[in-house]
């Protein structure tokens, strides 16, 4: 199974993206999107932003569950209180695991934000953040 994660800043600008695969069932964590799909991933997630803008005001929770789909791929979303959006493209329904994944990513994001050299909406280029996100992906998905 393959996943594509994107974090979108408050100006609808991408600040982080990661493509990864599951470690479950003997998979090695590499994504198996075919080349056409790879190119489409960012577009699919950006298309979902409009839906988020509708849905986010109808609920009190940060986790919006699966809000959109694209030919069998689901898109789950999480909106931080600061209106940064986390989007995950995935193939099977797995609400609880994704909820934990997003919550922990939010914690990591807050830590990045607390670093004095990071400005809100800058791309996140910290290698340690990258490593930690991958660890979380391995843990939950």
């Amino acid at each position, binding site marked *: 199974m393959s996943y594509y994660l994107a974090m979108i800043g408050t100006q609808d600008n991408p600040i982080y993206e990661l493509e990864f695969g599951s470690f479950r069932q003997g998979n090695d964590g590499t994504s198996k999107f075919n080349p056409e799909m790879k190119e489409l991933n960012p577009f699919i997630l950006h298309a979902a932003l409009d839906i988020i803008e509708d849905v986010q005001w109808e609920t009190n929770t940060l986790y919006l569950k699966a809000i959109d789909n694209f030919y069998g791929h689901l898109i789950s979303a999480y909106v931080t209180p600061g209106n940064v959006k986390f989007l995950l493209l995935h193939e099977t329904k797995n609400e609880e695991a994704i909820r934990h994944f997003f919550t922990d990513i939010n914690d990591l994001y807050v*830590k*990045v934000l*607390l*670093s*004095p*050299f*990071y400005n809100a909406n800058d791309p996140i280029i*910290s290698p*340690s953040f990258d490593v930690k996100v991958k660890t979380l992906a391995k843990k939950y998905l």
Partner: protein
Amino acid sequence: MSKTIKATADDIWKNKVEKINSELFTLTYGSVVAQLCRDFHNDYVQVNAQLERMGFNIGIRLIEDFLARTGLGRCQSFKETAEVVSKIGFKIFLNVVPLVTNWSGDGKQFSLVLEENPLAEFVELPQDDKASRALWYSNVLVGVLKGALQMVQLEVDVAFVKDVLRGDDATEIRLKLIKVLRDEVPAGED
């Protein structure tokens, strides 16, 4: 002796020190450093110097406060100074006790190794190579130590040699005693 030092420090930390929220403190220092970096257009050598100057100004005031709180007398040796700086100074102002280590043979140089650094929590240096080679993020401490020790007639050379932020295994400050300043009689007084 070292036990009583620890007990005094704990007592002062518990009863005589006003505490503030550590995140407020860390973020305040962080924004000062980040702003300096912007002001000097990432000329990190200048930023280091500026932080040290700020620290120096803190140090020469802080020592009075330190002596008033602790009621300590003059240290008998540089070794004792090292103990007091680490076990009382750092303890009551930052609530960390750096390890005093790496004494040189002549007893005039030692290192303070900080296991945790309250100034640098959450911090990641900018991703350019220049920052991780030139910037000493917590350089204010260097100035504080210099300033404070100078006010008690110790001229020391203080410098960071390692910082975990740069990817080193520890955060280490090196102190070197240059000379003990004597109270000098102004010219024409005798």
